[in-house]
């Protein structure tokens, strides 16, 4: 079983916000080492989907299977009930997330931001984590900025620190939520380069992205969402070149520059 079981399996995911159904039954699988890109117009439910994946928000219906085991629910007294926030924490450390607005902790330096969770959450020795964190900073080409505070860094630098912070947890998959959307065009490149490196190393990533160039050249698979449903998915070159639905055709039209 374990050899063929995908890393992540999503079945019939439904999320309602108030009266509105934001996700109307999403199904897909992600295999180890895959680079998956989720595209779609704003309001299509992409960011909500990503937050459901690591259970920052809990779905109303459907199942998420991580390495073959369902997450978000626990068996207690023969009943299936929602997991508590505390019970979700170990899962979240395995599937890290990078945000559109970086969300670095403003009172910590770049290095402190990175070592915070490995030391405080995983309880790993500080010296060891610090050495790894410095290596990660070098990898995102910020070795010289380790003592800088977030407000002293450009958006591109902050986002690369945020990626290093996520990697420091040694996650098995990474979620990227429009990580270049808040950046000026000249800063997007440095972040996309880091994401390319990660893909080349075989990191499993699920990205919500508007960077069609990145999606075409790096993603193994693209998922097009429209109004809370997956409308098309498959190899990005085929799917994007040859839309089967009018919605994707319109979307491709709108983002082609």
């Amino acid at each position, binding site marked *: 079983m374990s050899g063929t079981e995908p890393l992540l399996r999503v079945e019939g995911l439904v999320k309602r916000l108030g009266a509105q159904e934001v996700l109307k039954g999403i199904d897909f699988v992600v295999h180890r080492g895959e680079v998956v890109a989720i595209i779609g117009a704003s309001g299509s439910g992409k960011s909500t989907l990503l937050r459901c994946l690591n259970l*920052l928000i809990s779905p109303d219906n459907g199942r998420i299977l991580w390495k073959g085991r369902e997450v978000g629910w626990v068996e207690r007294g023969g009943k299936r009930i929602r997991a508590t926030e505390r019970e979700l924490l170990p899962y979240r*450390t395995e599937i*890290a997330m990078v*945000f559109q607005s970086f*969300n670095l902790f403003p*009172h910590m330096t770049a290095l402190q931001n990175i070592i915070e969770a490995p030391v405080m*959450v995983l309880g790993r020795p500080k010296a060891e984590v610090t050495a790894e964190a410095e290596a990660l900073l070098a990898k995102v080409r910020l070795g010289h900025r380790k003592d800088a*505070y977030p407000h002293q860094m450009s958006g591109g630098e902050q986002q690369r620190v945020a990626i290093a*912070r996520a990697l420091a*947890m040694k996650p098995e998959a990474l979620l990227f939520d429009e990580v270049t959307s808040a950046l000026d065009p000249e800063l997007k490149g440095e972040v996309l380069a880091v994401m390319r490196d990660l893909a080349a190393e075989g990191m499993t990533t699920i990205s919500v992205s508007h960077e069609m160039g990145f999606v075409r050249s790096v993603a193994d698979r693209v998922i097009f969402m429209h109004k809370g449903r997956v409308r098309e998915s498959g190899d990005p070159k085929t799917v994007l070149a040859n839309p089967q639905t009018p919605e994707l055709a319109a979307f491709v039209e709108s983002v082609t520059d």
Partner: protein
Amino acid sequence: MDVLLRQFPRFLDAIWLTLWMFAVITVIATLLGLALALWAEGRRARGLDLYTWVFRGLPELVVLLFCYLALPYAGIDLGSIGSAILAFVLVGTAFHAEIFRASLRAVDPRLTEAARSLGMPPGLRLRRVVLPQVARIALTPWATFLAGNVKMLSLASAVSVGEVMMVTRQSLAISQDPLTLILFAGAVYAAIASLVMIAETLIGGWMTRRYGPATGGT
């Protein structure tokens, strides 16, 4: 002037008492206010709402008289200094609770989300991520309240606490020169209040230089 000089040693004791009471009241009321604000987070804390409304709405003097004159009838006799401390803690806690509740609400929710995504449990999140932001956001309203609170300590003279205003009032009885005495007392409170505000400016400035603007640099 001569009365002021003759009474100077007593004034020094009184200044010391004022500072000491101020410190004790500030520490207790701040901690209680913070604890109440944290407890009330995310729930309908009707009880706390009522408490803060009552103690922010009542004149400090009335609370003070209650602690000093009424509580002994209920078997709680704290003496003049004890009553004054209790009264100002009751009032201060109400103000601090409101300040910290507002500050907690002002913390960028995206930072909490980031901490959750890193697997940080609620207690750790609060200690390492949320409270440092609260400290920055609350600094100015907190210091502003304290500067006002120092002046309110002068009311403790109403229940014969031997702080600056009390010594002033006693000295008035034997002085031909009340103006000098009262101005001196005013200057003492003004000096303490100004020190609080200067400290706030310095600390706030230092934090902005080091950590960027208070409401998150994202």
